[in-house]
Every structure is written in C-alpha cells, then in structure tokens.
C-alpha cells in the first residue's frame, strides 16, 4: 500500500489526542445510562465549537448529561434556569454603582463561564433569549461601555421541552439557527431503563471528577479543524443542503410543497464541521459519507421550515431529511 503521509500522520495524531474521548464517554456512561446519541452529540458540539440544543420530554437526563460533561472538564460551569420573569441582566450581568468607589462597576452574569446550561430556554421571553443568543454568536458581552470577551471554550447547551407549550416562547427560526445541533432525546431502551432503576435505587452517587483540561479541548479542536474533507464530501454536503432548498432538482418533487425554506449556508458549514468532529470521535483523519449522514439530522432538523401543507399532512422535518439522504447520490 502506498502511503498518504499527511493523512497517516493525522490519523496518528488523532489516535494520540482522542484518547480523552474514551475517558469522557466512560465518565458520562457512569452517570448516564444509554443515550449514546446524546453523548456523541455533546462531544461533537464540544469539539466543533458549536452550541447544542437538546429537546426531549422531562426526565430523560438532559440536564444531568450536560452537568456531567461540565463536571468531567476542569472548566467554569454555570446553570441558568430560564423563567418568564428572567431579565437579560440576569444572564449577561449589569453595572452596579459602588458607593465605596463612587462609580459604576460591572457585575458579570452567569454567561461568563466555559459551559452554560440554559435550562428550559423556551420559558423566558424573546428579549432574554436574544441576550443569550447574541453572546453565543459574538462570543462577547458589552456591559456599559466595556466589552468583555467570553472565556474559551464557550459552549451553550440549552434544553427545551416539547410538551407544555402554554406560557412558553418558542425560539424563532433565526435564533434556533445559531445552535449547531438540535438533538432530539428519546426514551431509553427497556434494558437501559432497568439499569437506570437499579442504579438510582442503589443510592450512593459516584463523584464526578474532572479528567480533562480546557487546554486539551482547545488542542483537540485544532486537530478537528485539520481532519481532511475531500471535495467529493464537500459536494455531497452541498447536494444535501441544496436538496432542502430545491428538492425538485434531486427528484424529490413531492417535497417541494412541504418545505417553506431550506437550509442556509450556515447549515452547510455546520454539517461540514460536525462531520469532521464525528470523524474525529471515530478516530479517523478524514471524513466519509457515513459521518455526514450520522450528523445530518441533528444539523438540519431545525433549519428546514415546514409549510402548512407539511403540517396538515403530518410530515416532519425528520422524514424530509431521511428522504433527502436516501435520494442524494453518495460519492
């Protein structure tokens, strides 16, 4: 076999630097039973510097998974419970008058952390959501006349509940697009459910200790950026995103009426980034079509606007993505 040296060297580096992935997964598995997809998605977000929105009914360990991940990393973690009376200042901070000094001093909010858990993000009004989403996009916060950079890595992991929609403020499409992944959490399997019962009734929680430094994540991110993405894969990603916009060009004329708007260029970028991170998790220095398909649902499901016809016909974005993936030719 002739050697492609750059890829081989990259593979070796990935092998060296991705050992923490196993440790992280093991650490997560000690606390969370099952939910392999959730753990993988959190790792993708962590490695590709993309925020993650988790959606699932209560009790599926969404918050626990995020807290565990944050605990496994030696980094600042803050949790914000979104409520209808929350104010933007409760998130980003505010200026407080100091009587001692006779001037205003900035009081930083909980957003100044490496990992921010925005629990039940759809419970707070749009003004509060946009304050957080602005910080997510700009990675900086302005208080008074001063602009503060947010720490690196900065990752927002938000949760929302698909039920009990009364009194909630659903994230607008433009804002939900800021999240790299929208992960739908499903119920655990029967065997997993039994393990969960066993683990919880046994009592005595195992302590979660940090096993990773923020610097390790920064280095891993650097390697993820070097994961080779062939132009054939670029074409495949572009084809998938284009098929969400112009399904008729890909032999999916029946989807045209169901889609009011397709994925933006941000969808293509995030699909490529997430595919790279997935390839890294799988200890590969290059992206293959499997990687793209593995992350396509999480990257695209919140970026496809459904039309009234789709809602009337009970067609979901999941079905649309599946049809697109089954119709676009794999390189």
């Amino acid at each position, binding site marked *: *076999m002739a050697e492609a040296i750059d*890829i081989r060297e990259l593979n070796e580096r990935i092998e060296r630097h991705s050992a923490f992935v196993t440790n992280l997964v093991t650490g997560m598995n000690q606390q969370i039973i099952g939910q392999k997809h959730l753990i993988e998605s959190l790792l993708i977000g962590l490695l590709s510097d993309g925020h993650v929105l988790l959606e699932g009914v209560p009790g599926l360990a969404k918050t626990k998974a995020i807290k565990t991940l944050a605990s496994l990393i030696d980094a600042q973690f803050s949790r914000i419970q979104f409520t209808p009376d929350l104010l933007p200042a409760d998130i980003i901070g505010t200026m407080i008058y100091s009587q001692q000094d006779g001037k205003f001093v900035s009081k930083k909010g909980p957003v100044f952390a490496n990992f921010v858990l925005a629990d039940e993000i759809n419970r707070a009004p749009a003004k509060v959501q946009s304050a957080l989403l602005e910080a997510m996009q700009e990675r900086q916060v302005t208080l008074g006349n001063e602009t503060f950079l947010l720490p690196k890595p900065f990752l927002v992991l938000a949760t929302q509940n698909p039920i009990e929609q009364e009194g909630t403020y659903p994230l607008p499409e433009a804002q939900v697009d800021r999240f790299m992944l929208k992960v739908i959490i499903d119920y655990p399997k029967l065997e997993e459910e039994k393990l969960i019962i066993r683990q919880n009734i046994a009592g005595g929680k195992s302590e979660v200790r940090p096993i990773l430094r923020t610097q390790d994540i920064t280095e891993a991110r650097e390697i993820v950026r070097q994961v080779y993405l*062939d132009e*054939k*894969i670029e074409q495949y990603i572009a084809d998938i995103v284009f098929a969400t916009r112009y399904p008729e060009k890909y032999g999916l004329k029946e989807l045209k009426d169901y889609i009011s708007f397709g994925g933006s260029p941000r969808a293509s970028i995030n699909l490529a980034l997430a595919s790279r991170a997935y390839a890294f998790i799988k200890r590969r220095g290059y992206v*293959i079509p499997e990687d793209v398909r593995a992350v396509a649902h999480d990257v695209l499901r919140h970026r496809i606007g459904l039309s009234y016809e789709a809602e009337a016909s009970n067609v979901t974005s999941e079905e649309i993505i599946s049809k697109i993936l089954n119709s676009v*030719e794999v390189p």
Partner: protein
Amino acid sequence: MNKKYLILLLLFSISMMASAQVTVDASIDTLLIRVGEQTKIHLQVSMDAGANYDFPQFKDTIVAGVECLEVSEPSVTELNDGKRILVSKDYLVTSFDSGHYFLPPLEVLVDQKPYVSKSLSLKVFSVDVDVTKPNEFFGPKDVMDAPFEWEDWALIFWLSILLIPMIGLCAYLVIRFRDNKPIIRHIKLAPKLPPHQKAMNEIQAIKSEKRWTPEDSKEYYTRLTDALRNYIKDRYGFNATEMTSSEIIEHLTSEKDEKALDELRQLFQTADLVKFAKYYTQINENDMNLVNAVEFINQTKVEVDPAELNKEQEMTVEEKRSRAVKFSLLAGIIILSILSVVAIGCIGKEIYELCF
C-alpha cells in the same frame, strides 16, 4: 199502428242524420285592421271520428287584396268519447290595400263531400296622415339585415375548428416531406444487457482504457465502485447508489454469507480511503481489487436464458410511452384526415346554402 212505425222511422232517420252531421264554423279575430296588420281566421270542422277531411289550400291570396301569410297545422280534439272530432286550422291573413273585403265561405271536403262555413268580412283602413305636419313624415326605412342566427353558422364554426388540427398535421407532413424523413420514426431497440454483463463491460472498459497510475487512483476507484453500486442496485433492487459503503455491506449481509462479503468490504474500504483520504494505491492493489469485483459479480450474478437475450428487450416506461404516442399519432393522422375532408365538404355546402 202505422203512425207509430212512421214516427219511429222518422226518429231513427233524424238520429242517423244527427250522428253523421258535419258542421263547419269560421271566425276571425278582428274585423278591422290597418293596412299591413295581420289577423287570424279560425276554421273549425266538427265531424265523425275516422272521416277524411280536406281543408282549403290558399297559395297566396284568399280573395284579391287579402293575402294568406301562414297556415297552421290542423289541431284535432276528440269529442263524445272519441266518437267525433273537432279539427281546427288557423289562417294568418293581411292586406295592403284599404277597403271592405268579403271573404267567401270556406269550403271543407269531408269524405269527399263539400261543406262550407259562413262568409266573413274584413275591413282594412289606411293610416290617417296629418298633412299639416310634414316634419313628421319619415322616408322609407332601409332594408333590414337579417338577424344573426347561431344555428346558421354553428356547423361552419365547429367544422372550421376541426380544420385547425388538419392544418397542423399538414404542416408536420410538409416538414417531414421537406426533410426527407418518414412520417413515423421507427425505433429499433437494442437488447438490454443483464446487470452483471453491464458491470463486466464497465470493468473491462476501466481495465483497458488506460494504464492507471497511483495518481489516477481516485478516478479508478470511483469508476470501479460506481460500476459495483449500479450492479448491486440492478441485481438486488435496493438503491445502492444512494447508500454508503457500510450500508451496502449491511444490506448485502442479510442476503449473502458475511464471509463472502469480506473481499467486497475490503474493496469498499480501500475505495473510501482513496476517494476521501488522499490514499494512493499501487497498481497490483488495483488489479487485486478489480479481480475481487469481478469475482463478486460472478458469484452473485443471475444467469439469463440466452433465448431471452435474443428476444426484443423489455421496453422502459419512456420507450413504451414513446411507442404509444407514435401509435396514437398515426391513428390521429388517419382519423383527422377523414374528418377534415368531410369537414371541408360540409363547410362548402353550408356556405353555398347561406350565400345562394
């Protein structure tokens, strides 16, 4: 006694006469009309049912100066439980000369016997003209155009519509004639190759096309895997071209021994490395994978009966549609030609009748 017989005979004769009686009655709507006005003469004949009758026929005039414009069809009403009938007929009359006209009794033949009605009279008077007001005199009106009647033109219209396709057809025939082409193009269908034959041809083409260098590995494996994917798609019926390598292997595992797929798996893995990871292979490795591909095809191919191959291939939907269209076109040409000839004849006849 003789008197009694005489009275009975008289009564019998009277009743017989009454039963065979024919009465003719004539009346006129109005006795006074102005010049050019019209009125109706009603002629009624009462007779036994079954009798033959013949009403008077007027060609133009009843008497000099009184014109008969229209004669209605006789209307028959049954009387006395169908034993007798009452036949009515109307005559529309007018006059263009003022005067007092005597209309003689109208004669009706019943069973060849003449019966007459009473005579009638008709007074026709002219319109008074006030000569002191000459500005109220109007000249004669122009000849009026006959009103448009759709019925007169409907046939011509619809037949003209029919002529449009004929003109199109003529244009098509003219073009085909000008280009020296047959009216209907005949398509000779080449025999369709079985999936394994197609794949083998493609592999043969890859093999013989050029001398593959390690730098050409990407193109080489892209073509090789495309040939295999298309073969698997046609052979097993699942959309292998839209599946990843591992998905294809997974699908095949359910149909084939997993061990037998090892070489194919190896081939796809190498192809993925070449296509997506800048991996370069040696020529002998390419040859080995080519042999593996051929072996896989040979192991999994479904032999086709040679007699089947000689038969005309099964047509694709597009081909069937194309042939159906051509058949419809030919039938259409024949039907339209016949219809058009008939249409032209009818149009000519109608126009001639309207104009002359």
